Structure formats: structure tokens, C-alpha cells
């Protein structure tokens, strides 16, 4: 690629032509330096704030570190400490419970909504705008608002609604059994619109000929949905599934702001635990334990994703 630089380029010696071999001078003349100038912002930012910290995370998980004393290597101690923390298994269980509930509430609903919406012939834009609105509300505002809605007294917003049909009052966030589902309902409300839009885009990509072919074979509406629409969406459905798992495994905002992990640690998630290891103690956190746990979480997610894509590819093949 030979693109000459303008005179305004950073200072460089104008190279006298001598040899045809690749020397620093021919490199500059060939635009190598200019390319590097363009790459510079990315290189600086990625080195400092992505590549180095990733490497540092691996190193730190084997170290005892705080902001006061120098880091010392402690082998696998951090991993051992984290794995023997009784709270870890509570957090793992809670995170799995959150992920499962989020799948139950949040996976079929957007699909159903998107399939219905793609049949709307007038004002479809209004439907998508309405569905997407909760995604636009800042998550912190949404959580604080819902926290008020979840007020446990009989005059709480949701309790008033349920009271009208003779249920409640429900102690939404104060009950160890109900708190997690309450969190998931809010999280689903906040995220579903994004998934709907992704499905809608995929639905417009379904070739009309497929439906026409099914109609010639005399397929009913339901058979068309089952045998044409859903198989066509399979790729997107598989991806949103794994993305949702990866997302819910790192849920933080809802438990942090709604309940702080309570009541009785029933909403302490893995990320909340990592946060508590590193930042809850104002005297300097246990950074080693926090990074060790985050690396284990990342490893589990990576292994899960690899297996998931292997298995689903095997399905597609058969």
C-alpha cells in the first residue's frame, strides 16, 4: 500500500533514495509511519486499558495485593481462599437462579412479541418504539423507580395493583424467596426491548419464498411459524441465548441497588461478591481474591461457550 503523506505529517527526514531494500527509511516513505500515527490512539488506549490489565489480572490472581504493601506471590492461595468461602457457593447458586429465572421470563417473551409485531401492517414503528423505551431509561433510574414500586406496604404501587384483585401485600424485596424473582422481573422489563429489536431484524430477513412454498404445501399459520419462522431464527436464537447467559452471569446493578445482596444473602451474586472482596472494605481490598474469582468466572463462561457452540453445531449438522 503506497499512500504518500502530506507535508503536514509529523516531522520526518526526507529520505534520499538509495537502495530498494526494506530499511526504516523506505518504511517511512511507504507510509509505514503514517499508518502508525493513525494506529497510535488505539495502541495507547488498548495497551493501557485493555491488554495490560488483562495480563495483570492473571498475574494478580496469584498475588497478595493491596494498595499499601508490595505485591507478593502466594501461589494458588487466592483460589483456595475463594473456593473455601462458604458465601461463594451461595453466590454461585444465586447467580444460577437469576440466570434460570431470566431465561424463563425473558427468553420466550421477546420472541413471541417480535413474531406478533412482524405481522403488524400499520404503525409498526409505534410498536418497536414502545418496546424499546425501557431500554433507553437509565438503568439506575429504572432500578430506583422499581424499588419504589416494590414498596412492601399495602400502599406500594404493585401491592395496590395486586390488592385490587385480593392478593398481597407482598414483601417484594424483604423476603428471601421473592427478592430474586422481583429483581429478575425488573431486569427482564429493562432488557426485553433490545432482544425484540434483534428478533424483528432477523424476521425481516426471512425470505418470502419460504412462506409461499409452505403455503403451496397447504401449511396452516401455526405450521408456518413452527416450520419456517422458528428454524430461520435459530441462529439468532442460539446467539441471544449464550449472550443472555454471559450477561446474567455478570449481573451486578440490580442486586447492588435493590437489596445489596440481602435479605439473608439471597441475592448475593458472583459479581457482588467480587465487588465486596475488592471494594467494600475502605481500608484496601483483597484484590487477589477478587481477580481470582473473576478469572474463574471468565474461565467457566469460556468453557461453557465453547461446549455450547460445539453442541449446537452438532445439532445443525444432524
Amino acid at each position, binding site marked *: 500500500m503506497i499512500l504518500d*503523506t502530506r507535508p503536514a505529517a509529523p516531522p520526518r527526514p526526507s529520505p534520499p533514495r538509495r537502495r530498494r531494500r526494506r530499511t526504516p527509511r523506505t518504511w517511512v516513505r511507504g507510509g509505514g509511519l503514517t499508518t502508525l500515527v493513525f494506529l497510535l490512539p488505539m495502541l495507547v488506549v488498548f495497551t493501557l486499558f485493555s491488554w495490560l490489565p488483562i495480563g495483570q489480572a492473571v498475574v494478580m490472581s496469584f498475588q497478595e495485593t493491596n494498595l499499601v504493601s508490595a505485591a507478593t506471590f502466594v501461589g494458588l492461595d487466592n483460589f483456595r481462599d475463594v473456593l473455601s468461602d462458604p458465601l461463594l457457593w451461595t453466590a454461585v447458586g444465586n447467580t444460577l437462579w437469576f440466570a434460570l429465572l431470566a431465561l424463563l421470563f425473558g427468553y420466550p417473551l421477546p420472541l413471541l412479541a417480535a413474531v406478533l409485531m412482524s405481522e403488524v401492517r400499520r404503525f409498526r414503528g409505534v410498536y418497536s418504539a414502545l418496546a424499546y423505551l425501557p431500554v433507553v431509561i437509565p438503568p439506575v433510574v429504572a432500578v430506583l423507580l422499581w424499588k419504589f414500586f416494590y414498596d412492601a406496604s399495602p400502599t406500594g404501587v404493585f401491592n395496590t395493583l395486586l390488592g385490587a384483585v385480593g392478593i398481597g401485600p407482598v414483601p417484594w424485596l424483604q423476603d428471601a424467596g421473592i427478592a430474586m424473582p422481583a429483581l429478575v422481573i425488573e431486569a427482564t422489563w429493562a432488557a426485553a426491548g433490545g432482544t425484540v*429489536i434483534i428478533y424483528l431484524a432477523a424476521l425481516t430477513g426471512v425470505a418470502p419464498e419460504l412462506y409461499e412454498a409452505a403455503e403451496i404445501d397447504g401449511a396452516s399459520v401455526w405450521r408456518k411459524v413452527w416450520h419456517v419462522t422458528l428454524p430461520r431464527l435459530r441462529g439468532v436464537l442460539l446467539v441471544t441465548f449464550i449472550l443472555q447467559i454471559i450477561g446474567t452471569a455478570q449481573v451486578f446493578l440490580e442486586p447492588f441497588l435493590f437489596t445489596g445482596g440481602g435479605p439473608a444473602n439471597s441475592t448475593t451474586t458472583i459479581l457482588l461478591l467480587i465487588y465486596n472482596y475488592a471494594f467494600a472494605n475502605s481500608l484496601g481490598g483483597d*484484590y487477589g481474591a477478587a481477580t481470582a474469582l473473576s478469572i474463574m468466572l471468565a474461565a467457566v463462561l469460556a468453557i461453557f461457550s465453547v461446549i455450547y457452540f460445539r453442541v449446537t453445531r452438532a445439532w445443525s449438522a444432524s
Partner: protein
Amino acid sequence: MSRGVLSQSDWRTPRVRRTARTLHVVLLALLFVAGVGPMLWLAKAAVTPTQDTLRQPLSLWPNGFDFANLATAWTRVEIDKYFLNTVAIAAGAWLVQLLVATTAGYALSVLRPRYRKVLTGVILATLFVPAVVLLVPLYLTVVDAKLINTFWAVWLPAGANAFNILLVQRFFDNLPREVFEAATVDGAGSYRLFWSVVLPMSRPILGVVSVFAVIAAWKDFLWPLLVLPDPDLQPLSVRLPALQRFVELDVFLAALAISTVIPVALFLVFQRLFLKSGALEGAVKG
């Protein structure tokens, strides 16, 4: 012609048409309740006295209006300051992300150095590292660099976004190369080509990246909470949960309402761009 599951003849069948219409009306009602309901409630609560909101949270019309809530939230609770902080954080993060993504995309896609493949690989690899792994080491990096309590602590890490680079690079790859060659023949150098040819041709993708950048900055909570411990520098998202403890409920709800207005207004104005970006998120990650 695009069409859905239902064919013209399906639509002519009374039973199918009736079912579809009913389902659509039900869906519209549900979407309205879920999408606009909370916001209408918040708008009402923002101008309703505390006691009224507490006693009858669902009354359609408040017993009295208290428009002073909004003014109190804006001035005495200093929502104006946190609001400006949010704007500054979003604007800076947006600029850094655009700068990094366009220059890197240009270098990798148009200038094409020999080490292009390797570099792209190393950038994309970061997509597979969950954000949580970076949390602690990134925090320590920022502490070491003495960036705590400066906006740079939010702006700069925002730039290390591989997803943006991927989007921009893909878009640049599809630009017609003849145009670049013509410009080069006409004497345009790399910088001029970037500024006067490539950037003006990439408005659509710059719009998408901008939406992602601004929304992400507006939504971010944990990172600014960690790196901006000084309340005077905190954005709304970080400050609101803390305010809850010492602000009266009606004023607090007014503050929540104010924080919602800008993103919702942006969405209503740039609706198409938002929805396109939302759909793209699925397509690229997929």
C-alpha cells in the same frame, strides 16, 4: 416485497384476521403499559406532593400539584451539577471512542499494514474477555496513573472498545476503493483521504458508534462509582442512589424524572438510528 407469516389470503380469512387484530391490540396495550406506563407515573409523581404519592400511588390525578419539586431538585439538590457531569462524561467518552475507532479502522482497513491481521486478532480477542476480569486491574491502573477523580478515568478506558473498531472496520472495508484511488491520484495524502473522503462517507456508522458511546456512558454505574469518589464529579447514575437517603421523596422522584428526560428525548428524535443500532448489536455479535 417483505411479508410476514400471514399471506394475503390468510388476511382475507375472517378468523385469522380477527385473531391477529385482537392479538395486536392486546400487544399494543401491554407494550404501552410496560413502555410508557412507568414514565407517565414518574412524570406525575415528579409534580405531586410526597404524601399524595405515598398514600395513593396509583390515583390518576393528584390532589395537588407541586411543581416546585422540579426546581428544588434542579437547584437545591444540585441535579444541574450532576447532570452537567453526566453530559461531560458522555461527551468525552464519545469523542475518545470516535477518535480511536475511526483512526484505527482507517489504518487497518484502508492503509492495510502488513501486521494488520495480527493486530485485528489481538483487538478482537479482547471481546472474549468478560468486563469483570478487567474491573480490579483497570481500577489499579487508574489509581497508579493518578487519574482517580478526573474524567479521564472514564473517558480513556471507554476508548478501548473492540466492538466499535470492528463495526467501523467492517464499514470501511465495504467502501468503494476506486474512490480512494481517485482521490490519491488527485494528490490526496493519507490524512486528507481520511478527513475529506473516508469520514464524510461514513456518517451512518459514525451515527451508530455515537449512539452506542453516548448511551453506554449515560448508563454506566459501577465504573464511575469506583473512579469518581468525589461527589462533585459524579454523574447522575452514581449520585442518584446516594441522594435517596437525604432527599424528600417527591424531590427525589423529580430528580429521577429529570434524569430520564434527555435519553428518552434523544431516543424519540433519533429513533431510527437507535433501533438500527439495536438490531446491529445482534447481527455483529452473532
